[in-house]
């Protein structure tokens, strides 16, 4: 059961991170930073930068993202550098799991005297590839109702079995034609040979005949001539009255009576 479930589920959770959002400017659009995946949530904001300032100068740096679903900020981390010398700062700020729809434009805002150098802002995120089950691989996938089945016309003559049968029939016809031609050629050849060897065959027959005659194995009557003619048939029928057998009269009468009884029985007489 467990194996069947695991083989069915192809959902995959992707953990990854964005490129440096502040690589080119201190303001950025999240559309270009996060992949537009349904169900994507941001887990952490990792940022670092270097501050150049005098220790006595006031300076506040805020790394922030506007709230795309309302006013204010969805994320804001403030570093107060007032009264301390500049340095490199590196922070990992967990934000839970804020959905991608809430992340508005980002920026690094500097208030006071000092500069931010080499900033880096990276968002770590995660998403489920089957958050919306749009493919049959995803658990819970349901095909759209509007999707009609596609019928693909298939020519029956293109069927493999029919093609094979047609080829077999063609081969048989070809074989029959070749056999017929060979027989015709053979008959022609036999006729030609017969004409050419008649004399030779006759000589052989005569020699065989003489040998057998010398051995007296053939009776002399074998060569006796029977006079021919036509034997006509002779039909002769003497018409006349053929009398009843008187000795069988009784039997004949009984037979006649039985016959009449049977005939009349069908008329209920």
């Amino acid at each position, binding site marked *: 059961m467990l194996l069947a479930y695991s083989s069915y589920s192809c959902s995959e959770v992707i953990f990854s991170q964005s490129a440096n959002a502040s690589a080119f400017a201190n303001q950025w659009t999240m559309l270009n930073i996060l992949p537009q995946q349904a169900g994507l949530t941001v887990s952490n904001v990792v940022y670092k930068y270097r501050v150049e300032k005098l220790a006595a100068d006031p300076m506040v740096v805020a790394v922030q993202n506007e709230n795309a679903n309302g006013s204010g900020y969805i994320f804001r981390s403030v570093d107060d550098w007032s*009264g301390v010398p500049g340095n*490199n*700062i590196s922070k990992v700020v967990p934000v839970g799991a804020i959905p991608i729809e809430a992340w508005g434009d980002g920026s690094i805002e500097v208030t006071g005297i000092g500069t931010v150098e080499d900033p880096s802002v990276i968002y770590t995120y995660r998403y489920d590839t089957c958050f919306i089950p749009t493919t049959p691989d995803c658990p819970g996938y349901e095909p759209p109702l509007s999707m009609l089945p596609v019928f693909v016309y298939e020519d029956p003559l293109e069927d493999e079995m029919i093609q094979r049968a047609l080829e077999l029939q063609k081969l048989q016809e070809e074989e029959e034609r070749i056999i017929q031609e060979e027989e015709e050629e053979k008959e022609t050849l036999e006729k030609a040979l017969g004409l050419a060897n008649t004399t030779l065959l006759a000589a052989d027959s005569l020699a065989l005949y003489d040998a057998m005659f010398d051995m007296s194995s053939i009776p002399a009557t074998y060569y006796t001539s029977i006079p021919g003619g036509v034997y006509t048939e002779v039909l002769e029928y003497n018409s006349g009255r053929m009398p009843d057998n008187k000795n069988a009269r009784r039997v004949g009468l009984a037979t006649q009576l039985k016959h009449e009884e049977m005939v009349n029985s069908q008329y209920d007489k």
Partner: protein
Amino acid sequence: MFKQTSLVAAILLSVTQGARALDAPIMGSVQSKCSITTDTPGIYGNPTPSVLSTAAVDGGIEPVVRFDVISADYYKAVITHPQDFSSSPTLTDTVVWNGAVSVSEVSDPLMSGYDAAKRVYNNVTEFDLTVAGTTWFSITSDASYGFDKSWPAGSYNAVVSAECIAL
């Protein structure tokens, strides 16, 4: 029936064990609220025959150690830069050591004030870890051999000691 039997047994047990003592143990463990990690191992560069230096301009790499403290004001970082090689070819002349420790990266801007408040004696530098979070300390170390004398060929190793001491 079962209840009665149990009651009798309980009475007997209380009578027979009434004079015994029992020691109940209490257990606990304390997890360190300060951890030290080597972030970057250092490398000595050899810009001139008589100098070994971790400075980037000298072709070296400065070692970086990271201190993570969960609670503020409970610990101090004590970092000792080397004054001797842990292993090296045989040296027949004196070695002059120099070094320094400074905050190279912070997780809170207030940590940037550690440098101004650090205490330095001999080859030791102490920082009070007054802010919870992570602080990276970089250590520079350089050694000069004799009076502009060339280092013998071979491998040189030194150790930076970093401690987190409870206040």
